[in-house]
């Protein structure tokens, strides 16, 4: 990214996560090309982008599931590019993957305990389990059931709770509201914001519900075709016309309405 796009005042908040020119691909297909982004300690950042833009790929590259072709990833000032995913988690980064990925044949409780695998302190873990049971009472109700038998939304709650169990310094959230009821979607974001405020946990959020994401986050990036095309404070992004139209769905009916005519995005 060129310097002009650097956020104002970016220099003094210490970036906890720093991606420089990262390029990742699946076989011959390049999924992200030269992505640079920073997340500062204690902030909530979000990445917006349409289908297949490469959001998930960015998160996977950060947590070491994909090795980038080029570029570097730094976490807490240390290089973690292409490290073993487990080692990265142990540094305090936890990832809520796209599509839930629970352990289907373990009980809900064991799933949560696995979330806390990197932690040694049993008492603190037990306390945290109670906390997440507080967030999602249904999990407490089903604590001995196999996670694979939960409904889609319940699994999503479990996936989020499991990541919280690691008491991380940075959480990567990939579409946390996927398949959650409107009420729970809102609650999830409240929890995210609360964790960020109360524990100071840094959060990098990928979300299709841009309205929620832009309201809950401090800073946003817009990704198109594997490139970052726009970045700014969320307050600013919320006011941009393109964002309004393509991500927030606020449009004059005359523009699109019943006619299926797609307006070109101006930044392409």
């Amino acid at each position, binding site marked *: 990214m060129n310097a002009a796009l650097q956020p104002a005042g970016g220099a003094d908040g210490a970036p906890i996560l720093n991606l420089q020119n990262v390029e990742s691909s699946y076989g011959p297909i390049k999924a992200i090309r030269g992505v640079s982004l920073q997340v500062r300690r204690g902030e909530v950042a979000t990445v917006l982008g349409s289908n297949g833009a490469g959001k998930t790929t960015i998160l996977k590259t950060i*947590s*070491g*599931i994909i090795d980038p072709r080029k570029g570097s990833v730094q976490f807490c000032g240390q290089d973690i590019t292409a490290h*073993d*995913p*487990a*080692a*990265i*988690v*142990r540094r305090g980064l*936890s*990832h*809520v*993957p796209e599509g839930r*990925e*629970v*352990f*289907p*044949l*373990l009980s809900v409780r*064991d*799933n949560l*305990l*696995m*979330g806390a*695998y*990197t932690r040694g302190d049993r008492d603190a873990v037990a306390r945290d389990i109670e906390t997440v049971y507080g967030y999602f009472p249904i999990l407490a109700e089903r604590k001995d059931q196999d996670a*694979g*038998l*939960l409904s889609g939304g319940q699994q999503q709650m479990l996936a989020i709770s*499991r*990541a919280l169990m*690691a008491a991380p310094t940075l959480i990567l959230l990939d579409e946390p509201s996927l398949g959650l009821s409107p009420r729970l979607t809102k609650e999830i974001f409240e929890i995210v914001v609360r964790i960020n405020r109360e524990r100071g946990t840094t959060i990098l959020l990928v979300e299709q519900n841009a309205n929620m994401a832009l309201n809950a986050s401090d800073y946003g990036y817009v990704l198109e075709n594997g490139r970052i095309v726009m970045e700014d404070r969320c307050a600013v992004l919320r006011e941009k016309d393109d964002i309004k139209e393509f991500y927030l769905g606020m449009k004059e009916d005359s523009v699109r309405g019943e006619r299926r005519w797609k307006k070109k995005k101006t930044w392409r």
Partner: protein
Amino acid sequence: MQFLQLLVSGLSQGCIYGLIALGFVLIYKATETVSFAQGELMMLGAFCGLVLMKLLGMPFWIAVVASIAAMALFGVLLERVVIRPILGQPAFSVVMLTIGIGYVLRGLVTMIPGFGTDTHALPVPYKDEAVQLGPLVLAAEQLAVIAATAVLCVLLYAMFRYTRLGVAMQASSQNQLAAYYMGIPVQRLNGLAWGLAAAVAAVAGLLLAPITFVHANMGFIGLKAFPAAVVGGFGSLPGAIVGGLVIGVIESLSGFYLPEGFKDTAAYIVVLLMLMVKPNGLFGERLVKKV
């Protein structure tokens, strides 16, 4: 009386199957692959003990401990060198890999000049001792197998059920990706599982040696342990033992009461019948996919 003696023989033979099946189940639970090399690891363990005792002249117990340790190390190395590179590939690849490993191990042992092609007896202190229980006779070798099987089963069961490590192994076998996301060192746990499996195999090999002798093809008994594991339910440790006992007893009884030929196929007939009635074995989990 006759029946009782047959039952006892069947049970002790069943314990042998169970003991080998434990190794299968262990690998299956921790990595969700089926190791066809388990029998060969057992053979290697027995040869290891043999070399330590006969060639290096170690005392029995030290040799036993040393060969279990050596085999554990070997299992870890094996995982590191050949299995880890394909970690994450479909389970079937690993199955083929273990078949390959089995071939290589058997071949390599056979290649040792003047040693590998021969059958050997392992000098154990309890050789030729028998316990008389009223009119029943039980060889000390068989008692050793029964005892070791029970102990190993309890230990492994406790590990998978109650320790964080054991649960994490199961977690990584169910969903490797998620296990990485949780910071579970999947590779290291896999190594550990293979190490454990090799150690269990070594125990089995050493215990079996006085009964079947040590030779390059002794691992083929593993083919009988598969049905044992399946009858019990492949993912279940107590199931492996129960399955082993069921098969041992049925073999023993059918050898006596049924026409010739049934003893040798009893294990396979039982496993087919069992699978028709209970497709997941006696103690296997009922698996439903929720969509």
